[in-house]
């Protein structure tokens, strides 16, 4: 990542992040945890896999995030016949100038919403995952750098699994966090309905209410500050122990790899910044353990038959891993 020219101070960064959080919460009602986790992934320059039933405001969340830092927003609805070129772009022969012209695809943006990523075949998924990992887009052998900041929010639908192509473990590992988005509470849903139906013709929430509080150029600076949040050795040790113990835990067929430890620390740093602290505590690591690890472990067949959920198994694991002391 290029070094930002004009560094922000830590306090400015904390304020900026808080303002972004408030702006998004004005439109996205009742999903505070999801908003926080998406912001954390952005600050830690990671990508997010969102799982939830349709109609819970995933698109709205991405749009509002894009709006609040004046970023460009792209959206791809993944279908079984989607081709890699539909994601990255393609070269088109122009009859007039007798030349090939590059048509850039929807991946050229700051925030990309990959809707129902598991509906497209592996080839197309791989094209997107390459963009995520390499931060560059190759069209007809020519490499273009991806936008900065670049973040992918891929969604998955937990129901209607027929005819889907589930992401392989290695590709799931590329996502920093897996965020579960659930139905809002009763009070929140009432607010939501009021907000959507009062004085509006269409039945979607508008992001017009959001003010742009930072510019796209500020995001790399915020990411830079996040990467410099102080982490004590005991906290490093704690994160590594959590990831390692998942490999021997009886409920898991396979545990999380070293990428999980890395993602745990990066997410914990971003969480500390979001909470206005200049250092990471074990609580940051623990609160990030579920979103970071839940897509990197696989339950054993016996536990799955027993109806144990991955989150429950991870909770049990966290209860057994000793927190750093003294």
């Amino acid at each position, binding site marked *: 990542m290029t070094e930002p020219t004009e560094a922000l101070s830590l306090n400015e960064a904390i304020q900026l992040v808080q303002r972004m959080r408030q702006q998004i919460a004005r439109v996205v009602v009742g999903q505070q945890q999801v908003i926080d986790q998406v912001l954390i992934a952005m600050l830690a320059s990671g990508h997010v896999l969102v799982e939830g039933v349709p109609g819970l405001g995933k698109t709205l969340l991405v749009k509002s995030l894009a709006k609040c830092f004046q970023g460009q927003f792209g959206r791809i609805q993944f279908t079984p016949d989607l081709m890699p070129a539909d994601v990255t772009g393609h070269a088109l022969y122009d009859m007039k100038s007798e030349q090939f012209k590059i048509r850039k695809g929807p991946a050229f943006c700051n925030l990309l919403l990959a809707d129902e990523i598991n509906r497209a075949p592996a080839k197309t998924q791989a094209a997107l995952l390459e963009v995520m990992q390499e931060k560059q887009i190759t069209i007809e052998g020519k490499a273009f750098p991806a936008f900065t900041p670049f973040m992918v929010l891929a969604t998955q639908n937990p129901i209607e699994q027929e005819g889907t192509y589930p992401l392989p473990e290695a590709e799931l590992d590329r996502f920093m966090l897996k965020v579960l988005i659930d139905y809002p509470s009763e009070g929140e849903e009432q607010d939501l309905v009021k907000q959507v139906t009062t004085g509006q013709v269409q039945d979607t929430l508008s992001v017009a209410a959001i003010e742009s509080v930072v510019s796209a150029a500020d995001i790399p600076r915020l990411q830079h500050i996040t990467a410099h949040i102080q982490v*004590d050795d005991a906290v490093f040790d704690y994160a590594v122990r959590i990831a390692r113990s998942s490999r021997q835990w009886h409920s898991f067929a396979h545990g999380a790899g070293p990428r999980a430890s890395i993602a745990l620390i990066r997410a914990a740093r971003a969480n500390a910044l979001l909470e206005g602290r*200049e250092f990471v505590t*074990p609580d940051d690591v623990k609160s990030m353990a579920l979103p970071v690890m839940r897509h990197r472990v696989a339950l054993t067949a016996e536990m799955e038959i*027993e109806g144990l959920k991955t989150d429950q198994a991870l909770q049990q694991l966290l209860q057994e891993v000793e927190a750093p002391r003294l």
Partner: protein
Amino acid sequence: MNLSKISVQVRPRNPYEAIDLGFVMARRWFIPLVLLWLVPALPVMVVSYLIFMDQPLWALLLIWWLKPLFESIQLRYISEKLFDDHVHWRHTLRHGRSVALHQWFAKLITQRLAFSRSFNMPVGELEQLTGKRRQQRLDTLHRGAGSSGLWLTFAGHSIESILVFAVFSTAWMFIPMEMDIDFEFSMLLSSPLLFPTITLAGFVAMTLVAPFYVCGGFMLYINRRTWLEAWDIELTFRQLSSDYVKPGKSLAMAVLLLTALGSLTALPTPARAELDRAQTQQKIIEILEGDAFHEIKEEQRWRWIDKPAAEEPEEDGSWLARFGKWIVKQLEGFNGVEDAGSLVTWIINGLEIVLWGLVIAVLAYLVYRFRHIRAPDVAFDNRTQAPPPSHLFGLELSQDSLPDDIISAAQTLWQQQQFRAALSLLYRAALTYLVHERHLPLNSSHTEQECLRLCLQHEPQHRGEFFQSLTQHWVALAYAHQPLSEQDFNALCAAWPRFDQQEPVG
């Protein structure tokens, strides 16, 4: 026994599901279980084989008879393994002798032919009950799952026999058709030349079936206890208690945790209601007189009407007489047919062995009953009480590791410029106090903020405030490396005595 460390998902199951889970366990720990069987049984097999060189089937019978001894070692292993994944089979084997010989007389004589032996085994082996109490306990356990235990035994025996037959069928199938040997399958089994092979095949079959039989019975037993003692509910409570204990419930939770951590060897509470006879009678009458028993419903459906049964032939003599007649009839029926003679001989030999076994068992039982011989109870005196709850909280904060006067020790450290050590001492002392004196359900996986949250929920305000400020300073020093001012440190030291007080203020 720490229920939260149990390596299976605890929930009430149907008995056959429980047996299935037992089989999964047997598959997972198959090698150690087979080794635990082979190490004691193989020498016995070799010795008995040498003794009964001419009659190898006797060696097989002996091993079959001694099976409960070897199986009890396997049972001990899985019962330990279920709650602690780090147990090694060699460790179990070291105590194998005392485990196998514990209640040996009962295992070999009085309980040897029990129909649901593997289901009954944990009661004697793990709960170490004998006599009347054992019988009561078995009655309670059998009420829901007795028949499954019986079928498990039946299936185990069948599979053993099938394995033995399988060895011979395989050999028989390999004889080429062209060889034109006049050779029947029954001859293969009844030829004395092949008795050694039958013995070995039988031994291998027992070795392979034993882990599944023992694990199936054990899980049946665990499942029955899950039903009776509601282990699943208890586990859920413990889960809740670690997350959302409400203020004022901590004592109840501590009691709950204590009961949950009772040893497996400790006696479970009887699953019977504590009402006296008269009250029960009264209650039954009330219920019987209630509306539920006075609803009148009319139902119409088709029913098959049996034809009147033919008159039963006259019964003569007891079942024993009839059995004898049947045997004689069989023998007479076969006497004339020369070809099947060997099969009949084989069946008769088998019957002879079983009958002799019964005679020995009855004689031994009579000796046991009338000469008042007490079976030597090897492990009975070693019965241990449930471990004290000191290990309840995994926190390695023993009170011995702290100095008597914490404040002066901390101040000395501070003056020696060891700021981190000084604050760490205070924090550790505060945690120790909360765990040991205030019985806060803290464990080693709780982070600083979780400890603080629990303290604020359960403790009076002044104590919570002090702990909050101590935690803030500690977190800032430990993770942000921000030094603490002397003023703050002195304020903490000055506030310490109020925190340490036994009686809550206000």
